[in-house]
């Protein structure tokens, strides 16, 4: 009766035989594994880069704030083609007040009106974006202050000349000094700096959010631009569940106020932060999937390469197989030997491919702002898939070897 020790020994010997055969043809083995190496590296790299892209998109979307709706003036569509924002500005102070008082889901809101202007302080000069907003603005955008405080309704009512500086502006004008309490001239109007904004990095639609000055919207309208309309309104909704209903209430209200006929399109556009986030992650998700699918074609090609080489190798080694069978190797032993060769080939390819994929991801991470994420699941998948490929494409050649007739095999030249 075979003990379990002797059975392990039997399989161990078959493993050794398989690995030796591969080592004997090291160059051929490497070339054969190349398909798997490239396939696994491509899948790992693609998934890592896709994950990184999704993470960075999610980050910028959530930088917009939680449960945020943004209303832009002008219709967003023209014959179904998005024309972007910036049609005729038509959001009024009246709209702003009506939304605040008539839509129950709105917990905070702020208009936004912006202009490019020259800021001078401390003998230095910096061109930046000046945005007129309401006191709620920083709260809606989850924008913290590192020093000072946000202006209040009183400042809005009196169109105070107070300003909050983005970290970039503060750095350009004041260097490391604390700007709070200092004076800044914007288009030659003196403002008092009452707060310093925390860094938020580059924004969703590009543009550095840190390079910015916030002032009361009333001040901006009256003293800076002279405009009567807002470019956009930013709204925080009470909860994620209320987003859709609030959005439709806002649409109804604004259509009424703007006297839009029922057959006409909206003359404004509402961006739903949650929708954007969902759309973006669906898009990146499907792009990642597509790239991974293309990459995995290379795995299939690699598998066929393995099958091809195994068939050639079995032809070449017909005599060896005949000798083994004649000396008592059972069909299962021969099958296992060649199956193990195929699996060892593709597994080795998988491991090298994994290392290569991680190297590619790391390089991409070092060279761009993207932070690729190699997840444990994609590593496990690479492993599993390469073993499966070895088993799948190795089975047929191994079965053929096991079926050889010893007499024919021994006669084979």
């Amino acid at each position, binding site marked *: *009766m*075979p*003990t379990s020790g*002797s*059975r392990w*020994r*039997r399989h161990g*010997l*078959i493993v050794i*035989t398989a690995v030796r055969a591969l080592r*004997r043809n090291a160059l051929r083995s490497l070339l054969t594994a190349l398909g798997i190496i490239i396939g696994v590296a491509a899948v790992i790299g693609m998934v890592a880069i896709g994950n990184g892209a999704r993470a960075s998109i999610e980050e910028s979307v959530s930088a917009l704030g939680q449960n945020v709706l943004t209303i832009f003036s002008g219709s967003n569509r023209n014959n179904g083609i998005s024309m972007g924002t910036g049609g005729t500005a038509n959001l009024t102070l009246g709209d702003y007040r009506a939304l605040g008082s008539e839509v129950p889901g709105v917990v905070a809101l702020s208009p936004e009106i912006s202009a490019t202007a020259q800021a001078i302080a401390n003998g230095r000069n910096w061109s930046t974006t000046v945005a007129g907003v309401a006191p709620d603005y920083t709260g809606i955008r989850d924008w913290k202050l590192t020093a000072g405080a946000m202006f209040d309704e009183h400042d809005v009512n009196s169109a105070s000349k107070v300003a909050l500086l983005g970290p970039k502006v503060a750095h350009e004008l004041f260097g490391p000094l604390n700007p709070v309490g200092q004076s800044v001239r914007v288009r030659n109007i003196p403002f008092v700096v009452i707060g310093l904004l925390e860094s938020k990095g580059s924004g969703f639609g590009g543009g550095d959010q840190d390079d910015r000055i916030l002032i009361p919207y009333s001040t901006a309208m009256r003293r800076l631009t002279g405009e009567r309309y807002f470019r956009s309104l930013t709204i925080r909704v009470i909860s994620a569940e209320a987003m859709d209903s609030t959005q439709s209430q806002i649409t109804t209200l604004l259509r009424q106020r703007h006297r839009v006929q029922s057959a006409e399109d909206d003359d404004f556009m509402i961006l739903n932060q949650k929708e954007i986030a969902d759309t973006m992650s669906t898009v990146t998700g499907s792009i990642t999937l597509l790239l991974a699918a293309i990459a995995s074609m290379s795995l299939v090609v690699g598998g066929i390469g393995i099958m091809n080489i195994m068939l050639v190798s079995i032809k070449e080694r017909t*005599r*060896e197989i*005949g*000798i*083994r*069978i*004649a*000396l*008592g*190797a*059972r*069909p*299962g*032993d021969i099958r296992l030997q060649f199956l193990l060769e195929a699996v060892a080939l593709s597994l080795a390819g998988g491991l090298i491919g994994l290392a290569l994929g991680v190297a590619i991801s790391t390089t991409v991470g070092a060279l761009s702002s993207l932070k690729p994420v190699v997840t444990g699941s994609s590593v496990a998948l690479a492993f599993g898939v390469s073993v499966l490929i070895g088993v799948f494409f190795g089975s047929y050649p191994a079965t053929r070897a096991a079926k050889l007739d*010893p*007499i024919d095999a*021994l006669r084979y030249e």
Partner: protein
Amino acid sequence: MTYASGEAEVRAVDHLSLDIQRGEFVAVMGVSGSGKSTLMNIIGCLDPPTSGTYLLDDVAVSQLDRRQLAILRNEKIGFVFQSFNLLARTSALENVELPLHYSEAVLPRRERLARATAVLTRTGLAGRLNHRPSQLSGGQQQRVAIARALINNPEVLLADEPTGNLDTRTSADVMGLFQSLNDAGITVVMVTHELDIAAYAKRMLVMRDGRVVDDRLNDRRTVASEEQARLQHAMTNAMLDERDADAH
């Protein structure tokens, strides 16, 4: 036993009825192509007969599947092939050890190598353990093949021209080995072209066209130890003659 060769059926072994008892030492002779190797393949469970029956230890070999045949070959039969069939690029030691890889209970490596070393020593190759077949002479390869056939302590030793590549002296050594194995109870069947090699056997068969045409017991059996002594004596004499010639 028939082979399909193109259109025609080749009857390599035909209407052959043979009974070999445990402990016999049979020499099979016959001209080239008479079916000797084919008979050996049948006895060796390598090539089950296409028709007819072959019983080994009362087991009907033609009814066994490939796995059962493999086990039988591994455990009961030692086969020395006409063309050696050693693995190239593999040392003598590993070639001899190979059948042990496929035994039911695989021995630890150290024991396998010890046994392989022992049989190689017995066939006079103690000094060539790590040589590959390509680094060995024809006769040495033949002795590696014999050692491999003996590693699993077979009940039946089949040898297809085991002395085909050996000189008279080494042939006598190999026959001595076969005779002592046979004395220890192993059944030996060997193919040979040479009458003086067949003379070491207890029974002699002659084949022609796939049939046994002569089957007789050998009553004037050569005993290897005597033959070895005779050869030794002859060689000594030859050397003495040579010396005498030199002296004149």
